[in-house]
């Protein structure tokens, strides 16, 4: 969400730098105020809930996404203070909107007397390609966010406006849900203004932005994808507003209009709520090579066929130079004084400002106007040489730089303190609830509504350790409670999001019926990876138990069976030689995220697929995934801790460390995966998306059962060994009880094969999986593409199964002990199942690859010919 350099103190304590605790005086019984123990418990609880909801941040960072950090202690703002702020933010939004209209319209404001032209034409967000375009609905700036801090006198001060594609509103809603839950005691007593009306206004604003004639417009949220910094925020916002979450590749421009690819054809799109920076939205007219956008989008907008919110080009208002001119723009445009002050700003493109900035470098925050290196620099953190270098940069290209006054009650203390940025000054004698002099920023949100703007009654507060607030650098979020005196009981915000979605459905929104091929593919692979992880865990469990029983007696029946099972069920684990003895890396097969076939790897891919279709899933899905993740993390930590101890040579020698402690971890993982399976089976509507999810699971299981039987029984073994193998496979495929009930005694490989391959009533059998798979696929569309190839392959597998005479196949053993008939039959099934998987991919998920830019005639000058 960008970095915001500012120095201020706790948001909820205007003018009182030394007092950092929220004001609980409104509680009926002051004793209800949460004490340190309550808060510690609330923090732990919040962490757990956020993990269960899969709330993350920063998937674009090199070390991957991390959990969203929430400090449940809220920022509390009183009603009168907020009412003033609300009015000021509304005015600011109206002003920014007027500036935006002018910048892409008559440009009458672009004079040195009002707004120096270079501030606009020198900003990378000024997109000439969209000059002159207008949004229906009367506003250009539909959504805006403003970052605020408290100034030294306790008043609010704006330090940045976010007008590109403001992020964080859905994080704010999530923060509210969690805080309301973990501080339920005080939350219930509070009269807190609701966040819901803001999202309601947002929905109306999107509808108002629709091109004329679209009575029930189709609206989508264009996401920058699961690998983007605020992926959770985007997906959660989409599900709150009931909008399909689409990526650029899900959309196309045809006949001058925008369409969403569906499994059974394309659907017109009227409004795009974009979370992709404008420059990336169209590789034809904007940034060449962007794969996040849609070629032709600018043309469709220009033709009035679709509206993009915020409109392309809106980020020009994010220029850090603009605040310097807002006061005079307000007088010119609104004939009023600017109600919300900005941090004092000097744009170096003006000679007088340049001299001021150069003379006060060590007091100012320096910001490049175009997000270029070196980013935001607090001048007082620079050593003399670095300061000189910065001064030289600024003097060389002054229009590129802005100096901004540091704001906050603790500015002087922070600046004068040694080691600012790394150390926390002034913490001595301060209790744990004290936040200390940290930087804190409140992001507020406004949306165009009913001729003006609706401001979210609350926002996203973030508090950092140092003077820079950045979610990427680990700033913690806080909920913002705006109090109200009206005796309106606190709403159940926990349910608010759900209620909102409900409201939307009944508000006459057109449901975009189809899902995109990308969504279908992710659901299919969710099913496959969930099943793959489960299969591997079960195999590991069986092999680990067998290892414990028999690995010391390799020549025994059990020992010989163990050798077979290691190769057949956990082939990924048997490559690690340990001395002269072969010791399987069973733990690696559970924990290693990069090892082929490892559980952790399947789970990681399952997580990615789930994140990409978050809008299709209930939040319950993420709880079990988080549990599984915790189990793996714990086991990793435990395994690390153990190797850190003195090496137990005895355990290494006798091989007991191969499985030590593994069983409980496997049980925990399996437990979580069962919950995932339960949610897919019971918690999802049986629509097309579910069919793909189920098809993925069935196909994976069918392959696994055939493969494990093939690997285990291709070679005939002594009866006693095979009895152990039968027992193990039954355990692997959770069919022990059925088997025992059905075959009292004397049952062997043929009976096992009958149960695992042919029994239509056994949910673990090939036959059952095939039936379900074919049923699932019969219910999914594949328009204009013949499905015969896919259907033939699966019918062939069914035929092969029907023709399989298990007694004969098991009984026919060649001289070398190989069961050639069985092998041939199972191998035929296996390659057909794999081919059917490829065919499903091709039929249902195929979509054009990334677009390629035309070869530039300049580059092709060699071939210029007459």
């Amino acid at each position: 969400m960008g970095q915001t350099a500012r120095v201020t103190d706790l948001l909820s304590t205007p003018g009182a730098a030394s007092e950092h605790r929220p004001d609980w005086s409104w509680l009926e019984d002051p004793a209800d105020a949460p004490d340190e123990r309550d808060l510690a418990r609330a923090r732990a609880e919040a962490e757990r809930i956020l993990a269960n909801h899969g709330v993350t941040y920063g998937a674009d960072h090199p070390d991957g996404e991390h959990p969203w950090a929430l400090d449940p202690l809220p920022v509390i703002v009183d009603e009168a203070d907020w009412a003033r702020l609300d009015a000021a933010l509304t005015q600011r939004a109206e002003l920014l909107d007027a500036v935006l209209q002018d910048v892409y319209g008559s440009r009458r404001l672009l004079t040195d007397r009002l707004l120096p032209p270079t501030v606009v034409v020198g900003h990378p967000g000024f997109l000439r390609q969209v000059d002159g375009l207008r949004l229906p609905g009367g506003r250009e700036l539909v959504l805006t966010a403003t970052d605020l801090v408290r100034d030294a006198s306790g008043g609010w001060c704006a330090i940045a406006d976010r007008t590109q594609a403001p992020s964080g509103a859905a994080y704010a809603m999530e923060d509210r849900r969690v805080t309301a839950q973990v501080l339920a005691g005080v939350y219930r007593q509070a009269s807190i203004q609701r966040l819901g009306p803001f999202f309601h206004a947002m929905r109306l604003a999107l509808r108002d932005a629709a091109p004329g004639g679209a009575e029930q417009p189709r609206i989508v949220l264009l996401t920058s994808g699961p690998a983007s910094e605020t992926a959770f925020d985007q997906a959660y916002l989409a599900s709150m507003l009931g909008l399909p979450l689409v990526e650029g590749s899900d959309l196309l421009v045809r006949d001058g209009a925008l369409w969403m690819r569906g499994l059974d054809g394309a659907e017109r799109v009227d409004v795009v709520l974009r979370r992709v920076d404008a420059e990336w939205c169209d590789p034809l007219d904007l940034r060449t090579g962007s794969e996040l956008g849609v070629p032709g989008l600018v043309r469709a907008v220009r033709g009035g066929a679709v509206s993009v919110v915020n409109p392309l080009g809106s980020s020009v208002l994010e220029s850090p130079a603009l605040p310097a001119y807002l006061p005079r723009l307000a007088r010119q445009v609104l004939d009023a004084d600017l109600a919300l002050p900005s941090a004092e700003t000097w744009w170096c493109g003006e000679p007088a400002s340049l001299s001021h900035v150069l003379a006060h470098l060590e007091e100012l925050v320096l910001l490049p106007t175009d997000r270029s290196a070196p980013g935001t620099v607090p001048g007082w953190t620079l050593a003399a040489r670095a300061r000189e270098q910065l001064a030289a940069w600024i003097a060389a290209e002054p229009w590129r730089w802005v100096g901004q006054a540091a704001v906050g009650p603790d500015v002087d203390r922070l600046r004068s303190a040694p080691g600012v940025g790394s150390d926390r000054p002034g913490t001595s004698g301060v209790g744990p609830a004290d936040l200390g002099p940290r930087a804190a920023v409140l992001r507020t949100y406004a949306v165009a509504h009913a001729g003006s703007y609706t401001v979210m009654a609350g926002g996203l507060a973030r508090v950092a350790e140092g003077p820079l607030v950045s979610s990427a650098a680990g700033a913690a979020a806080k909920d913002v409670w705006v109090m109200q005196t009206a005796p309106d009981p606190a709403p159940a915000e926990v349910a608010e999001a759900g209620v909102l979605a409900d409201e939307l459905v009944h508000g006459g929104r057109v449901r975009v019926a189809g899902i995109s091929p990308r969504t279908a593919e992710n659901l299919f692979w969710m099913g496959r990876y969930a099943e793959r992880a489960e299969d591997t865990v079960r195999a590991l469990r069986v092999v680990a138990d067998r290892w414990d029983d028999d690995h010391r007696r390799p020549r025994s029946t059990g020992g010989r069976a163990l050798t077979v099972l290691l190769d057949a069920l956990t082939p990924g684990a048997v490559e690690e030689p340990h001395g002269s003895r072969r010791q399987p890396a069973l733990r690696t097969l559970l924990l290693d995220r990069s090892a082929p076939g490892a559980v952790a790897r399947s789970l990681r891919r399952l997580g990615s697929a789930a994140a990409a279709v978050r809008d299709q899933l209930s939040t319950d899905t993420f709880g079990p995934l988080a549990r599984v993740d915790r189990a793996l993390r714990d086991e990793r930590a435990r395994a690390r801790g153990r190797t850190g101890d003195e090496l137990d040579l005895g355990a290494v020698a006798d091989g007991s460390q191969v499985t030590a402690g593994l069983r409980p971890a496997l049980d925990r993982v399996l437990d979580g995966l069962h919950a995932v399976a339960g949610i897919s089976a019971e918690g999802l509507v049986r629509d097309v998306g579910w069919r793909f999810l189920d098809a993925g699971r069935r196909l994976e299981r069918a392959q696994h059962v055939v493969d494990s039987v093939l690997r285990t029984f291709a070679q005939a073994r002594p009866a006693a060994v095979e009895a152990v193998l039968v027992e193990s496979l039954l355990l692997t495929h959770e069919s022990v009880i059925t088997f025992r009930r059905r075959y009292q005694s004397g049952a062997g490989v043929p009976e096992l094969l009958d149960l695992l391959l042919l029994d239509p009533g056994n949910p673990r059998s090939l036959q059952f999986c095939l039936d379900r798979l074919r049923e699932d696929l019969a219910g999914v569309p594949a328009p204009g593409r013949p499905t015969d190839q896919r259907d033939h392959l699966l019918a062939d597998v069914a035929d092969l199964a029907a023709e399989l005479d298990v007694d004969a196949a098991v009984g026919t053993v060649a001289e070398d002990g190989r069961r050639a008939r069985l092998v041939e039959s199972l191998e035929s099934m296996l390659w057909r199942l794999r081919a059917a998987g490829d065919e499903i991919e091709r039929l249902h998920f195929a979509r054009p690859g990334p677009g390629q830019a035309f070869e530039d005639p300049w580059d092709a000058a060699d071939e210029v010919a007459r």
Partner: protein
Amino acid sequence: MRTYDLVHRTTYTYEHPVTSSYGRTTLTPRDEPGQVCLDTSLEIDPAPADTAGHTDYYGNRSSYFSVTERHQRLVVTSRSTVEVTREAATPGALPAVDWQEVARSVESGVLAAAAAPEVLVALREMVLPSTHVSRAPEVLAWAQPSFAPGRSLGDVVVDLSHRIRHELAYRTGSTTVHTTQAQLLAQGAGVCQDFAHLMLAALRLHGLPARYVSGYLETRPPAGREKLRGADASHAWVSVWVPGAGWVDVDPTNDQFVDDRYVVLGWGRDYHDVPPLRGVIFAEGRGSRLQVQVDLVPAGSPRFA
């Protein structure tokens, strides 16, 4: 007055079938003082499913097309008839203004503000660096001898143009769209786009507004005159703002002021704003061959196509 027939054809031949193609052209000459486009057409083959035209931010005529028919060859042909009455500026007739005075007046805005607010916006825009026009120290060093204090802007322009023509070799294919001014100076050779960008960079570094012009040169010179460089393809040159004279076009590739042998397509900050043709294809594989044919001949002459 001269009237020309203009044909500009771009042919892409693809190694793999293209399922859809989206394109944007600046291939229609704009009207401006000294030039009128009498007739124009844009042909796309295969026939496009959608086309749209508009006047862009700089006043250029821009066209969009999309082809949704599967194809392995795309031909974009622009034909125009253009009447040109432009007379070249003569250095002696240009207002004798000190280049430093000009830079100062652009910064203070006094001269521009006297004209019109939009002039100020354009001038401020055309002194900034842009995609292909850098503020590299190499350019500053190279340009330095041309910017003697007190020199008139006209003399600076003439000198820069002359130096580019004589210090750098014109070599087709020696640069790409990614070549920087520093690389150009290091290798000492380039094409018309490079020369225009270098001159823009030199002028803008000194606070002097200048824009990039995309267009054409007469293909076959009148009898007895030498064929000019860049006549077989898209051409590019520079337009410099001279107080009292307005935007003055000069062609550093041929070291001359622009006259009625030139046809203007459009202008912008640099090549990136006005490439004749850009686009995106969705194809089943990579690989394409490109052929460009340009012909600018007196109206009524036999055409090549």
